[in-house]
């Protein structure tokens, strides 16, 4: 077993279901979001967006807007103040290679919805009204936004994106093996463009503190990224900038990079020496990042018994004209299955859109949909049960990484426990064989995978004489439960109650931590907080030993345990001293420690770390009317230790719901003639509503992992991966219709 946090050998809080510590603040409105902070001199900025996708601004007339009483200024490319010159300065921590977009930079239009002016007024309504009066004359060029058309110009990204593994070198000879295979399957798969659309729109409030100093509230998944970006772009000393974002109304990856409203708010604040807030409207949420569409082809060659002989997965993803966005789309196929002849390729193609970005399980949602649908097709072609097929081609090592074994892979437990919970053994594999009333019933399954990562992270812990502990760092809680799990970890590590612990996040005044993404926050921040707390514990212990008549005299640190607010000799609770008494007796005003956590190099040299899942889905299909309902989902997850079953379950539920959305509903519809997404509101861009969602059963299988001291692998993303494939596979089982082009809407069922 992994070690407990508590030195007593038994954790009180970690591992048990706990409600969110930030819940009361959120439901009572006390939690303030980036667009809710104010200052007496606050100006409201409203963005004017480009109505064309490509071309240039011939003229922009702001006269009428500026004449509106209450309007202070209209910023455009013509009157903006200077910012940094070189691209390097605009490249944030997670930027792909290229020239990052600069708002109001010049007269060129790169994509529809591009910000072309910022109207600044004393109140929001005035700014919005004046924004409608800005008159723009464009020189229009024909945009290219159709990925199929752009495919002709697809290329392998010449410079790889930091942190994104390119496809591995091929092994064997996939094409020759395919040609020689008894079973040959080759199909194309497609996933629509999706926009993140967190409930909270992107917003930034820059408070001008005078004297060249600013306090910035930015909707971002890690304030350190915005902090460094602003410092470089605006040439402001980091010490003169403090960036905060205590709460996030959802991110899903849209807040990994600083978005343009931050740049605009800072540009205006610096120019006018006033505080400025810029909030994007819902339709402007289609003018920032998105999950790119991808064209994929999978070729599977297999023996009659389903043994994989050849696997080829080719993908072309969309990017912008100015950056080479990359994600891991095809590698998963090589990670998931054992096969001697594998070829994985990944290209990108430039479109006249904004740069796509990471969206919950970026790349994996796309690639795993394709491979897991293809595997279902192979199951039918070989006559094997889909689970049996996956077991037949099961791998214990990562062929894309020199065959290093997985640190842990309890996927077989996911299969067996998930199948048992779902009742998979009662499935008649024959398509169209199950029916209930008018509806066809389909049972499908798929497997999911996501990399388990850890990042260099620091954290601080401060214990005060009132017995209260504060822990924290600059990462964000994007709604995942980070506040809660860090509070649990700190409380158990030092033997306090959760009420004694306050966790602070999202503030560059706190020790530096990376953006919250990649499902790495629990492992990274959790480890750093644990280490900081242990350090505090050791310091308090030393102080306790120095106390007069100390009950801990001559006791080693290894022999004491922290529990109930005391340090006690293990096995001898009578020899104990309260932490508050130690601090008071010592006369210190606090005990403080900062600790760092980093990936375990030794472990990473020997093992590869992934989370795994098996998803089972029941759909009911009214075939005549093309109606698909997902009536039941079992998602069995292998992700190491679960710190908080309640928040963990919520992560998986959210992932599954988003996966259902991806499978059946989500689609940003582009009018390629004008290069514009047209359904840019939540009425017409469909995400699932309650009525679409029925039973979702989450199972966490036992899995022990040693990639980090906590034994956790991260849960933010694995819930969505593979879910769409399981839905599509269930639709096939119900109807006999294989739909390889998401979302599976009415027309595709009818077609």
């Amino acid at each position: 077993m992994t070690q407990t946090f508590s030195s007593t050998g038994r954790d009180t809080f970690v591992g048990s279901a706990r409600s969110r510590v930030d819940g009361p603040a959120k439901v009572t409105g006390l939690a303030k979001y980036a667009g809710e902070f104010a200052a007496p001199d606050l100006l409201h900025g409203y963005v004017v967006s480009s109505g064309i996708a490509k071309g240039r601004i011939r003229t922009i007339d702001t006269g009428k807007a500026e004449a509106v009483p209450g309007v202070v200024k209209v910023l455009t490319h013509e009157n903006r103040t200077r910012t940094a010159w070189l691209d390097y300065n605009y490249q944030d921590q997670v930027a792909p290679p290229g020239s990052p977009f600069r708002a109001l930079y010049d007269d060129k239009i790169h994509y529809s919805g591009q910000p072309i002016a910022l109207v600044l007024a004393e109140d929001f309504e005035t700014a919005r009204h004046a924004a409608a009066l800005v008159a723009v004359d464009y020189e229009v060029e024909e945009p290219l936004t159709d990925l199929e058309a752009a495919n002709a110009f697809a290329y392998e990204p010449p410079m790889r994106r930091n942190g994104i593994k390119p496809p591995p070198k091929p092994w064997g000879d996939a094409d020759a093996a395919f040609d020689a295979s008894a079973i040959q399957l080759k199909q194309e798969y497609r996933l629509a463009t999706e926009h993140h659309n967190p409930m909270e729109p992107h917003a930034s409030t820059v408070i001008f503190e005078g004297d060249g100093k600013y306090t910035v509230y930015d909707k971002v998944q890690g304030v350190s990224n915005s902090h460094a970006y602003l410092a470089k772009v605006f040439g402001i000393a980091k010490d003169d900038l403090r960036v905060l974002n205590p709460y996030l109304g959802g991110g899903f990856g849209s807040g990994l990079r600083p978005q343009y409203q931050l740049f605009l708010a800072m540009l205006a604040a610096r120019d006018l020496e006033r505080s400025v807030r810029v909030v994007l409207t819902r339709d402007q949420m289609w003018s920032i990042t998105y999950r790119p569409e991808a064209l994929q082809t999978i070729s599977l060659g297999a023996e009659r018994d389903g043994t994989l002989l050849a696997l080829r997965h080719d993908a072309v993803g969309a990017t912008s004209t100015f950056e080479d966005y990359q994600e891991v789309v095809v590698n998963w196929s090589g990670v998931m299955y054992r096969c001697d002849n594998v070829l994985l390729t990944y290209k990108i193609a430039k479109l006249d859109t904004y740069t796509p970005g990471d969206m919950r399980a970026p790349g994996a949602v796309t690639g795993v949909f394709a491979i897991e649908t293809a595997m279902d097709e192979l199951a039918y072609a070989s006559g094997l049960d889909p689970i049996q097929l996956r077991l037949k081609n099961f791998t214990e090592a990562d062929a894309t990484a020199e065959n290093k074994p997985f640190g842990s892979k309890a996927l077989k437990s996911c299969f067996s426990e998930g199948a048992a919970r779902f009742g998979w053994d009662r499935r008649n594999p024959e398509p169209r064989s199950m029916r209930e009333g008018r509806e066809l019933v389909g049972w499908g399954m798929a497997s999911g995978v996501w990399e388990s990562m850890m990042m260099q992270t620091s954290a601080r812990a401060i214990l005060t004489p009132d017995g209260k502990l504060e822990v924290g760092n600059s990462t964000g809680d994007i709604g995942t439960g980070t506040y809660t799990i860090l509070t649990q970890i700190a409380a158990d590590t030092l033997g306090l109650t959760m009420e004694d612990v306050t966790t602070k996040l999202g503030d560059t005044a706190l020790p530096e931590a990376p953006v919250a993404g990649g499902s790495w926050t629990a492992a990274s921040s959790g480890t750093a907080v644990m280490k900081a707390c242990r350090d505090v514990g050791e310091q308090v212990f030393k102080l306790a030993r120095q106390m007069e008549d100390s009950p801990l005299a001559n006791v080693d640190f290894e022999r004491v345990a922290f529990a109930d607010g005391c340090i006690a000799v293990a096995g001898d609770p009578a020899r104990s001293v309260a932490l508050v008494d130690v601090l008071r007796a010592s006369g210190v005003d606090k005990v403080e420690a900062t600790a760092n956590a980093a990936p375990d190099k030794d472990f990473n040299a020997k093992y590869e770390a992934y989370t795994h899942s098996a998803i089972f889905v029941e759909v009911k299909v009214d075939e005549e009317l093309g109606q698909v309902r997902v009536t039941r989902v079992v998602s069995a997850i292998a992700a190491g230790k679960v710190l908080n079953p309640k928040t963990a379950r919520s992560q998986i539920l959210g992932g599954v719901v988003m996966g259902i959305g991806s499978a059946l509903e989500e689609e940003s519809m582009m009018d390629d003639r004008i290069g514009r997404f047209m359904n840019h509101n939540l009425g017409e861009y469909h995400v699932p509503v309650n009525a679409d969602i029925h039973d979702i059963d989450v199972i966490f299988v036992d899995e022990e992992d040693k990639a980090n001291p906590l034994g956790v692998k991260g849960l933010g993303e694995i819930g969505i991966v593979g879910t769409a494939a399981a839905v599509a596979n269930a639709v096939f089982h119900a109807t006999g219709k294989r739909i390889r082009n998401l979302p599976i809407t009415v027309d595709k069922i009818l077609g």
Partner: protein
Amino acid sequence: MNRFDYVRADTVAEAVQAFAAAPGARFIAGGTNLIDLMKYDVERPGRLVDITRLPLGEIVEHDGGLRLGALATNATVAYDARVRARYPLLSNAILAGASAQLRNAASTGGNLLQRTRCYYFYDTSTPCNKRQPGSGCQAIGGVTRIHAIFGTSPSCIATHPSDMCVALAALEAVVQVSGPDGDRAIPFSEFHRLPGDAPEQDTTLKPGEIVVAVDLPERDFGQHVTYLKLRDRLSYAFALVSVAAALELDGDTVRTARLALGGVAHKPWRNREAEALLQDKPATRESFQAAADLIVAEAQPQAGNAFKVELARRAIVRGLEQAAAGTPQSITDKRIQ
């Protein structure tokens, strides 16, 4: 959103007067659509005449049927015991639309007057004949999943988005209006219009006229009704195709059939020929199929909504089956029977 003048009226006459006094005025009741349109800069009223204080919120017995005050909220109408008992078609259609919050705010008159949800109408960066007459229709040849398949014109392919109106069309409600030239009654089928070459006009209301009530005729169809709505998700989505079906049966023989379709045209779509075709025919799938075939024969879809033709055909058949069987589509159980 532009700056506007705001006036509150206490009587219908005052409202009509306040409206006439300011060019570009708009009446505002629930505001669930108008405010959105103002925020999008699609509607730029010079004056809002607040009619929420007018005494038009009642639902009363009238001429053997019911008179729905124009300010009765969608929720009030949908949950009214008399409406539920006698006009379940209307109740179900209302509850199939929008969300609980919107239905609590939206009024009967406002529901009739809500505007299309055509993407291009809402997006001021694209031309739209409905928004700006003569500017062109960008929707034609564009993203047309939600657009009309019946009664379109080269000027406009937008649909009327209401669910409630589809039921009102099938029930042959009558719209009572008041205006500068006095009061008049407009049969429901004549209230909304097809786009033709004037898509900016959604209805046949004359300038300055205000809807004061909607009358439901005495003739109800008991339980032989259904409102079947097919959409891209099971709540809070406009209809791709919806069917309001009402039948009077004599044993297994259809005596009267009423059929209105939503999501497919600039107004609730009725085809009297198809309704007549069903008269005195057995209430069978074959009869329903024949009526459906007749209706969809007229369809002129776009590339992006061709599927709606077949979907409409099937939905008509299913809707008529439900109505004949007296098993209206449940609004809570999303399974379609």
